[in-house]
């Protein structure tokens, strides 16, 4: 069962809503509007005489101990609403009674633990199916205590550094993310308080890195250097990006191993160094100036960006970035824009011809029938094939979109409207149609047509071994055409009776496979998954909107 994305986003909005109440009051804006999350108009559970129960024990996944006073809730499978909730007793036991036959996603939560669904993997979990012949009274619901990472950021002389931006990175398994090979991902961020303290709570176990981006509170950078004025001011200083354990070298960053439920301290001291001044080309374009952008890069991700610089570019064609800390940047400059990696070590003029030229990607979103996709559609480009570029997003109107300054490399394009995916099933560039959602950018601007599928079916079936439903298996729908793998692959997790439902499936030919304990596989890599395909079940989805394809044959669990 896949988590109901809509409901979860509504929940997050709701929390923001609560957090924003203060800001809203201060801003005199209209009060927070309740989210109309529920769009599915399911009838309330039928009051049948059936009386099934879901019962079991909640245990600490780390220690195996029973967790008392955890809240366990059975949700409606279609609407995500709470059907019933209860608290565990002193031995961690819970029982939800008098349930109608049906499918219930189960959640458990307790302060200090990471709220999770039953047997959760990535965004999937196993819903509990009640009915005749279903044993739903002996569940072991493992929940993970959240880990805490905290520390103090100090500057020279041990003074606390307030308002330092502390960015948390986590080493991810290759299976988690759909793009790239870079496996250290930004996972959270916070600011230090007046004592220099920061804290991340509710973290899952894993390997983390911490980076601090800050400026000395007393730093002063004259906008344009003048002869004779504070030539070497002791205040013209900056803090380079600093990693735990107080190194400015990303490669020397110390990983922090967090076990479930532990509280670990990671203090970081910053050292101010003379700031750099970089003169960067800002060429004129008509009556405007093409402003460069200097992006601070940490583990391949952009953590902050500074645009513009100062100076008189209309006259000189150059702007100056002052107060630049030595370190690694990505610089976008010129027209057409060029993107270069910059290891800034000294002040001076930056080569205006450095790096690779970025190009413009214009395009159209079309339905399979060739009709332009109306309305506001969010279009996203993600780097694939290992290059460290950042993702880009624009809004398409009347099906037309434009990305400026796209660096060379292979990109995947995806589209969504109001949180619903509009899968890209083919991309055509220069007259060539390629199935899937990837395309290559070289050294010149291109125009593409992305075909999105709006007729999405569900593929439903059962994962079984020896005729018995298997819960918790990873279910994959793999397109027959290898080049469409990334765009069209779908996943789910089998529910307690072995049932699954793969959503948003465009018309085409597929193979469905079921793998027990397959959650650590690099499912993004078709080669890795190829060996499972021979034991899959073939399915053809025809072009009929909103249909459900039920597999008559059960999918063998591998």
């Amino acid at each position, binding site marked *: 069962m896949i988590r109901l994305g*809509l*409901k979860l986003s509504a*929940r997050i909005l*709701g929390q923001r809503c*609560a957090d924003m109440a*203060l800001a809203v*009051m*201060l801003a*005199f804006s209209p009060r*927070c509007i*309740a*989210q*109309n999350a*529920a*769009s599915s108009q399911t009838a*309330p*559970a039928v*009051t049948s005489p059936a009386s099934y129960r879901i019962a079991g024990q909640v245990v600490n996944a780390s220690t195996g101990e029973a967790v008392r006073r955890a*809240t366990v*809730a059975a949700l409606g499978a279609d*609407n*995500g*609403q*709470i*059907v*019933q*909730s*209860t608290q565990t007793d002193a031995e961690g036991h819970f029982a*939800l009674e*008098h349930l109608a036959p049906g499918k219930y996603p189960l*959640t458990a939560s307790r302060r*200090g633990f990471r*709220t999770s669904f039953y047997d959760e993997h990535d965004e999937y979990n196993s819903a509990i199916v009640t009915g005749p012949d279903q044993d739903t009274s002996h569940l072991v619901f493992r929940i993970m205590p959240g880990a*805490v990472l905290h520390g103090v950021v100090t500057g020279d002389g041990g003074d606390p550094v*307030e*308002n330092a931006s502390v960015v948390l990175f986590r080493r991810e398994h290759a299976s988690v993310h759909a793009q790239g090979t870079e496996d250290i991902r930004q996972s959270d961020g916070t600011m230090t308080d*007046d*004592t220099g303290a920061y804290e991340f709570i*509710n973290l899952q176990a894993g390997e983390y890195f911490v980076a601090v981006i800050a400026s000395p*509170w*007393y730093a*002063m*950078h*004259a906008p344009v250097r003048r002869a*004779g*004025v*504070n030539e070497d*001011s002791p*205040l013209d200083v900056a803090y380079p990006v600093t990693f735990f354990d107080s190194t400015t070298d990303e490669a020397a960053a110390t990983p922090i191993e967090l076990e479930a439920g532990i*509280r670990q301290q990671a203090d970081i001291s910053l050292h101010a160094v003379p700031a750099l001044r970089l003169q960067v080309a800002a060429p004129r374009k008509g009556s405007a100036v093409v402003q460069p952008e200097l992006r601070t890069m940490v583990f391949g991700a952009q953590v902050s960006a500074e645009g513009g610089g100062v100076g008189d570019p209309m006259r000189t064609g150059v702007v100056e970035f002052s107060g630049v800390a030595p370190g690694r940047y990505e610089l976008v400059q010129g027209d057409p824009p060029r993107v270069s990696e910059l290891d800034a070590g000294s002040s001076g003029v930056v080569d205006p011809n450095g790096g690779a030229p970025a190009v413009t990607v214009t395009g159209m979103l079309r*339905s399979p029938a060739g*009709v*332009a996709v*109306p*309305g506001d559609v969010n279009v996203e480009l993600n780097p694939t094939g290992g290059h460290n570029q950042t993702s880009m997003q624009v809004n398409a109107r009347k099906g037309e979109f434009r990305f400026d300054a796209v660096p060379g490399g292979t990109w995947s394009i995806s589209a969504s*409207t109001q*949180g*619903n995916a*509009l899968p890209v099933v083919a991309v055509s560039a220069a007259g060539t149609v390629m199935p899937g959602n990837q395309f290559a950018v070289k050294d010149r601007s291109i125009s593409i047509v992305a075909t999105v599928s709006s007729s999405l079916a569900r593929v439903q079936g059962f994962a079984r071994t020896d005729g018995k439903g298997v819960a918790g298996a990873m279910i994959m729908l793999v397109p027959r055409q290898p080049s469409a793998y990334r765009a069209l692959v779908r996943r789910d997790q089998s529910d307690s009776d072995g049932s699954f439902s793969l959503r948003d499936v465009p018309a085409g030919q597929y193979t469905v496979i079921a793998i027990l304990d397959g959650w650590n596989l690099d499912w993004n890599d078709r080669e890795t998954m190829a060996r499972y395909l021979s034991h899959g079940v073939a399915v053809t989805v025809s072009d009929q*909107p909103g249909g459900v394809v039920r597999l008559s044959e059960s999918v063998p669990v591998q």
Partner: protein
Amino acid sequence: MPRVTVQGVVKNAATGEPLPRALVRIEGDAVTGALTDGEGRFEISGVPLGPQAFQVMKPGFIDTASPFMAPPTVINGSSNSEHNVYVASGMTDLSFSLAPTNAISGQVELSTGDHAQGIAVMLLRRSVQDGRAIWQPVTNARTNSDGAYRFAGLTDGTYAVFTEPAMDSEIPAFLVEGGGEQATIRAGYPSIFYPDAADLSGASRITVAAGQQAQANLLLTEEPFHLVRAALVLPHSRNDSADAPLNVNVSVLDGQGHQLSYGGQYDQSTHSVQAFLPDGAYALRVTAMATPPGPVFTDGSRPVGIAAPRPNDRPDDSLIGQVDFPVAGQAVTHLRIPLTGQRSNSIQVSVIRSGIPPQPDNPGAQPAPIAVMISQAGGSINDGMVTSFAEGYSTGPMETNATTGPGSYWVHTTIPQKTLCEASFTAGGASLAREPLVLGASGSSVPLALTLRDDCASLKISLPESADVQDAGEERYYTLYVIPDFDSTTDITPVVLRPSSGGSLTVDGLTPGSYHVYTFASPVQLEYRNPEAMAALSQHGQTVVLDPGGTSSLVVEVPGH
């Protein structure tokens, strides 16, 4: 340009002691600065002669000497306070002072013995807004994994602290399905005001000054939270579109009608609202508006999950309803909230013509409209929340916005035309400067009448010669309030007089009558609508009577620094 070296000292305003490692910086065409040494002394070379803007800063301190800003309540990083300094050669040492900021921190404990991690704590400050003291939300924080919270960078003043209601544990779902009411067991920690009050009236005032670190610990007691469900009943005129999507805003009020920080949710599938509440007396108030239509494909289909547009829905179709109820030991699910259209009111605007020929202050240009704003009154944590109430011209009646809910509000009138000024603003004959405006259940009010007059007066205020000199060094400035001795809903903005801007200015568009003028040597937020606060000041004010259509002059008496 000739340049000189400027030196001086920075002191701690609370103790008078010198402050080391404070930054003194000069903004303008030369950005330069220096840190103070161990004796609090600084020296900046290469400073151009003439007027320069100085900033003084240090973490944990605030410069409260700025005329441009009201004393801020919470400072993040540097403040924008500036000192005007006339730099001359042979200038004597400058002396600046910074006030240490205060902090309120505390430990939250839970009756269940759980770690009080992630509990939302809110900070209120007693502030003056448009001449009235109110409790204003300043900032919020969450407790860390130790259950500790901290509000730092606070200016001297009086504060109150409260916790947001917190569920014992969060379920990743908002709404309870029909039929599940009695089987849904939730517990939580009700909102409390430090030290253990249910509302602001019982809260302890925490007064901090001179760099104090105050401690405010809280003990939260777990209670059952019961499901409350209320069905929304649309007016008959709306029944045809009963399934039209609504943007629904739910607020939970206490028995006195004050907004609480409990949240409510709207369930579109059942047209009902839900909340989880501990035992007590409450009201649920709902305002609803039709959602704007979503996009449609050219082939007539719609993206998944987007409701169909309703051509009959007017965007200004605003509904309101409320139900009062107690919660006592069990779920409350039989409630109904009838929604009715919110009513707008009409403000009768009239002008008393004096026969003085009108003098358009900006000939040819369309004058800006008269604006009536209202701010929440009545002693809740939402006090001071300002909304626009009406806008219009001096000709004919003015329609008010129909989106304002019931409650009591202070009225603030802004009249941009300097040829018009307020004579009176009444609700059912009572002055709105004395009594708040009371809006009833559907937003209706007793008749409102705004009377203007066209014989407005001007007042030229000047510094005495002794204070109107521009010496080398830091410039002195004065903050003035010109306060009528009669009722007015027009807010008073303090004016700043300084020698470098001529030492005088003219306030126009004033209603003729008697005024008090108060002059201060430092920025002050005056509670000018509080008779008690003003009584304490009375001997400091100067009286001036403004004649209809006339211009008067006043040389102010300046206090010593």
